[in-house]
């Protein structure tokens, strides 16, 4: 039964089971790029995620927002060399990203997830796009679209872009990682909206920021399969609700019709 003992941080004295060495990353004192990673119970994938993050840019800092973790997520992140923000209670990806963004000091903010190992080479295009002037560099991945019917989140993302008169973005959205923001974009969007990604997406477009697709990373394949929830995934419901919140903001900003004309309907003729 000794073999099945939970592996802790304390190095094992047994020589028969050599432990893989943790990667080492260094945070630049004056970073140009901040990499923000919310993490909750992700100690298995975190070392590899941090290793790739450390290779993205020579002048960078990596911020791990460890929240609600009951495993050694925070300790591992600290051991590797990332800046760690610890929260006992679970925050969720979006709040974690907002908190990380508030602590970030770089000019480019790259957001990734702790449960997805994306090679550094696939992350660099997002950073480079913002470095060359883009405000919001999106992932072009929008989910499976080769059927008549699509997933509710896919429909929501396409609809929001269509209503924002940005059909070129297709299903690209701040809901998906990886994405990168310029400091200007973070300030324009504001912390509160940053917590609701579709709202942040809408605010960025309406305020005239340079929002474009920087690259396409198929995160659908990388996303770990989770245990079934019995019925609809509550995340789907949350994301669709977020899109409605974004549309609500659009209505407040641009009026009942979201800024679209009704081609001269004589509504008063009907009584």
């Amino acid at each position, binding site marked *: 039964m000794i073999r099945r003992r939970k592996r802790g941080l304390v190095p094992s004295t047994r020589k028969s089971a050599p432990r893989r060495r943790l990667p080492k990353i260094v945070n630049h004192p004056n970073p140009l790029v901040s990499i923000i990673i919310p993490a909750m119970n992700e100690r298995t994938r975190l070392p590899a995620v941090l290793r790739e993050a450390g290779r993205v840019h020579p002048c960078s800092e990596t911020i791990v927002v460890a929240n609600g973790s009951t495993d050694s997520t925070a300790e591992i992140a600290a051991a590797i060399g990332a800046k760690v923000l610890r929260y006992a209670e679970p925050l969720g*990806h979006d709040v974690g990203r907002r908190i990380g963004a508030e602590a970030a000091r770089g000019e480019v903010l790259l957001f990734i997830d702790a449960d997805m190992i994306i090679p550094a080479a696939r992350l660099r295009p997002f950073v480079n796009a913002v470095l060359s002037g883009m405000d919001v560099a999106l992932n072009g991945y929008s989910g499976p679209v080769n059927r008549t019917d699509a997933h509710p989140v896919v429909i929501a993302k396409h*609809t929001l872009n269509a209503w924002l008169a940005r059909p070129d973005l297709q299903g690209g959205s701040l809901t998906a990682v990886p994405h990168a923001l310029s400091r200007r974009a973070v300030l324009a969007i504001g912390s509160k909206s940053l*917590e609701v990604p579709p709202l942040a997406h809408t605010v960025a477009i309406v305020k005239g920021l340079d929002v474009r697709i920087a690259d396409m990373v198929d995160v659908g394949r990388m996303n770990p399969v*989770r245990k079934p929830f019995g019925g609809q995934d509550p995340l789907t419901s949350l994301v669709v609700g977020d899109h409605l919140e974004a549309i609500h903001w659009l*209505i407040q900003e641009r009026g009942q019709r*979201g800024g679209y*004309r009704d*081609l001269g309907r*004589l509504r008063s003729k009907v009584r």
Partner: protein
Amino acid sequence: MRMRMRMRKMRMITRRKKTRKYGNSGRHRRRQLAGINPARSRSARNHPSVRRRTRQHNDIKDSSMRGAGSSSPPELESLVLKGEREAQPGNYIPLSFMGTAAAVVIASNERATLNSVVEELIRLPLQEIIVVLNGCSDGSFSALEHHPRLIKLSFPERLGHDVGRALGAAMTTCDSVLFVDGDLPVAAEDLAPFLLAIEQGSDVALNDITPFLPSFMKQDAVTYSKMFLNMTLGRRDLLANSLTAVPHALSRKALNTLGHISLIVPPKAHALALLHGLTVTAPHSVNVVKKNRIRSTNTGPTNAVAGLIKGDHIEALAEVMKACGTRLNFTRLTRGELAKVRNGR
């Protein structure tokens, strides 16, 4: 060899006989298409709407006989002939409805197609046919002169999109109302299912455009908008079916609940119907995508009509949000709670 040839010939003859059994009766075929038992013809013939039609038929016959005696001018003669063709037994669809039914036709400079649209409607047992002529300057009004039963509403100035539909709906008191466009002749057999659905308890009978949809990546903003609205109102199964597309039919209950004013913005009426728990179905498919007239305003990525429909859907959601709050029925679980569900150990 010869024997085999003869056998084949025999088989062909019997096959021909089989097809001839119902082949001559166009009426039989049409009744089958409309989902009516052909054996029940007598009860259908006794229906008041049908009886009235036969009387009308006789009247026309009388006038034609008179016409033959007193050398009528040629245009009158052609008119009479037309009337006779319409009233031919078997040309109309003798459905037996419990309630009354009406049709509302919206036309805007549709002279070329309006007549055939109306001729198909006449084949249905409708109490009222209301034609709304919206800013017509091409003589659409006079093109309909030989149809005495029509109620024509003529608006010389353009009312804008869908306003005519609301005006037509306000005119009728029938139990079910069928909405069609003047630019798109649809066979009566394809219109009957919508009225039948209302008769069988639906409040809103939509055109099921699902068979004509391409895969998601090839769909346009209008289709996304319709799907999104249905999904947010808990009817993902309706896909892109919407009151935006014709033909569709509404029940009296739907008209009373929604109010004819809401029909000015079809997606708004659609959203309200779902919100109020009306029975919304899509009983039949008519391909309006392929047949729709191509205009400068409804093609291309930045077409004006697409903008109008997007605006309509935003307006519809704004209306729903007024009643149910911003997030409708979507989770209010905080992000932290959700993370706990998904990532907790």
